[in-house]
């Protein structure tokens, strides 16, 4: 009698994550094409239209990259938390709380210099995201409560709180009764670097390298990795596992909060339910596809930004924008399956 077992490969190719992403992309485009064919559309036409309208001009390219900013930042936050092997499902809520804190600080402060003001506001966004993570972090560290549940549930609380604010105390009286908060002043709008691309993208690049450094090159990152591998090993090594877990969670939440701040100051300019259109959830896909690697998150996040814009523009020719969602989701599926086969091999063992 013999049976088959999965064995982890001793060495995994450095680019295996990249290859599996490519495989995932091929699978997802195939699936997308089939769906388009069923709808009597020519996939080639639709995809070239998507490309043209999402990266074809300075304006469209910069819009696409603007969409990538929250995906990348929240994705980086998820990756940081994953160094201690925890999952942040709450990037969505952290983005909202980040934006709320930014608005709160904006209402109550006034700095002479706009650039200083913007800087303070961005920091407030980061702090807002961290605050949003406080409850999951404290319950995790003190009682070991599953962070997937707590971060997910805080989303609903924070989004509910946002809805309350924009219907109640922060409601803009000039908004024709729409539930939105008042605009922030133009002096704190994020400046653009080229086309419509906001300076937030530069922050993204900095944060990508910062995260790479933190995870891969710093002592703190090392300690977080050991903590993630085994909390007992961390304690054995004299590493304060609870403290590292706590720090990783707060930084992770902070990155998503920063994304919220950039959305507020760069895109929506006011607190509304439109601060995030599910970016916090898409960021999970981005982070997972790339195996939590910062540079990968930057690349895939940018690509997903393109897909989002591409998905919304093809609606003009009568194709549902959900085609873009389908592509994103099947990319994750395909990539994870491919990564699985890069990581494991199937081995035959004799039974008994």
């Amino acid at each position, binding site marked *: 009698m013999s049976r088959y077992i999965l064995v*982890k*490969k*001793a*060495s*995994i190719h450095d680019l295996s994550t990249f290859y599996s992403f490519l495989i995932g992309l091929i699978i997802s485009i195939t699936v997308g094409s089939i769906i388009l064919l069923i709808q009597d559309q020519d996939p080639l036409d639709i995809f070239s239209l998507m490309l043209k309208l999402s990266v074809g001009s300075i304006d469209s390219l910069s819009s696409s990259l603007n969409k990538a900013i929250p995906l990348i930042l929240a994705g980086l936050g998820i990756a940081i938390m994953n160094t201690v*092997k925890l999952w942040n499902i709450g990037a969505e809520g952290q983005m909202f709380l980040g934006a709320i804190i930014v608005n709160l600080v904006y209402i109550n402060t006034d700095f002479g210099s706009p650039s200083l003001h913007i800087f303070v506001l961005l920091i407030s966004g980061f702090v807002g995201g961290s605050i949003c993570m406080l409850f999951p972090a404290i319950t995790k560290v003190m009682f070991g409560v599953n962070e997937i549940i707590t971060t997910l549930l805080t989303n609903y609380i924070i989004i509910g709180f946002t809805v309350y604010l924009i219907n109640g105390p922060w409601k803009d009286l000039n908004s024709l009764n729409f539930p939105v908060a008042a605009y922030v002043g133009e002096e704190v709008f994020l400046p653009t670097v080229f086309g419509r691309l906001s300076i937030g993208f530069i922050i993204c690049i900095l944060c990508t390298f910062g995260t790479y450094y933190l995870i891969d*090159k*710093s*002592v*703190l*990152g*090392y300690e977080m*990795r*050991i903590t*993630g*591998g*085994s909390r*007992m*090993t*961390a*304690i*054995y*090594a*004299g590493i304060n596992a609870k403290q590292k877990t706590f720090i990783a969670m707060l930084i992770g939440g902070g990155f998503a909060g920063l994304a919220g701040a950039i959305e507020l100051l760069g895109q929506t300019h006011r607190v509304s339910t439109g601060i995030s259109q599910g970016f916090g959830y898409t960021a999970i896909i981005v982070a997972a596809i790339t195996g939590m690697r910062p540079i990968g998150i930057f690349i895939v996040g940018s690509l997903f930004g393109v897909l989002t814009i591409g998905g919304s523009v093809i609606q003009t020719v009568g194709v549902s924008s959900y085609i873009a969602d389908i592509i994103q989701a099947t990319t994750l599926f395909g990539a994870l399956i491919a990564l699985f086969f890069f990581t494991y091999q199937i081995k035959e063992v004799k039974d*008994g």
Partner: protein
Amino acid sequence: MNQIILETKQISKSFGKVQALNNIDFYLYKGKIHGLLGENGAGKTSLMNVLSGVYQPEKGSIYINGEKQVRLTPDASLNLGIGMVHQEFRLIEDFSIKDNLTLSKTNIYIKDFKKAYDKYSKIFSLSAESNSPVSELSVGEKQKIEIMKLIFSNSNIMLLDEPTAVLTPQETDQLKLSLDNLSQEDGKTIVLITHKLNEIKQFTEKIFVMKNGEMIAKDLKTKAVSHKTLVNLMVGEITSSKVNKDNPKGEVKLRIENILHKKTESDLNILEDVTLSIKSGEILGIAGVSGNGQVELANIISGIEQNFNGNIFINDIDVSIKGVRARKELNLSYVPENRLGVGLAPGVSVLDNSAIKEYSAASYGPHLLKNKLLEHLNLLIQEFSIKVPDPKAEVSTLSGGNMQKILMGRELISNPEVIIASQPTRGLDVRAVEAIHSLIIHQRDNGTAVMLFSEDLDELFKLSDRIIVLYEGKIIKEFDIDKASRQNVGLAMAGVHE
């Protein structure tokens, strides 16, 4: 009346290269209590798993009530009335006692549960109501429910794997009465697997002894055999030590005084009044059956467990209230028993794991110098001839021997003042064992004080200068190696000391 109810002939079973059972002949008399004695890894539990259908033997045959069993599956075994209580409980914590007892499809008391429960809870002197959830019971009570479960599922052959390991002495006495009652009144056939000599003498009528997967003594009459005979059978002859023990000993490096440690959730003393000291160049062996406080003692000395009373001195510096890091800075090394999970972090690269002891030396402010880590790993690989395919490979993909060498090497390379090594060779093949032993000896010759926890008596006798026996958290005996005999150490491990 000596009716044989179950018999195995020439049963063999191997796992990979390890021969767990080798031509085992074993039989049970109906209505008697049998003891199955042997060291850890002797094959006792494997044999019981064959009988309860969990393992399929490669060869040999099993007869139950004289009938040959072609293929004994867990199901078939249950239907034939064989039931087993495992070392780890298999109860459903959230279910009530009643639900747990009547869970098995072979259960016979579902209709008149109340009557049966009243009867057996009296026999086991269990006071809990049958509708209370199992999670509310104490460990001892859970043990009783496990045994009662066998009765309720109509098992006539009851295999009990180390049933007393979790019990207090009083509970153990109580268990004996209950088991006597079951065998005499209900005619149950009982097998008690243990390595505690006192208990096997106290509980059983017949004794079988296993060693290294073989049945080396069968059907001994408990009344007629002495402790010493049993110990000799169980641990075998001593292999002569080839290690020179005349190296110079120096100052006391590690001294611990009056260590008292309680389990957090109970008042049970895990360690009591443990005092010892180790000199430079000396190896102190700690013998004892696992679960007698070894892990806790090692954790307390290394600083992982902070909840204890007593004092610890490294080079005469009191470190009792200092953390892991402060003790590491005094160059204390610890090779924990749990290799992967404590000593090494699974899922993390070999490189990261190789730096756990001294990564702060490779740091520059917040920056971690990867080159230094790599240099350090390469040094380990050369010095200890470790086979590592790729520094980035996950440590769990290495072989057991190489994993242990990474761990040992990491802890030894700094030439520590004190090293605590817990089961350093468990599960390794002969060559790896030799390599680890010579590392320890080499380290001793460099003037390190070594504390060696081991369940392997050969290893302890080969390496140690002195042997201390831990039994139920206390040092019940200390031997100088030239005055120690395997027999006396074995007796002390089983809790016997005159």
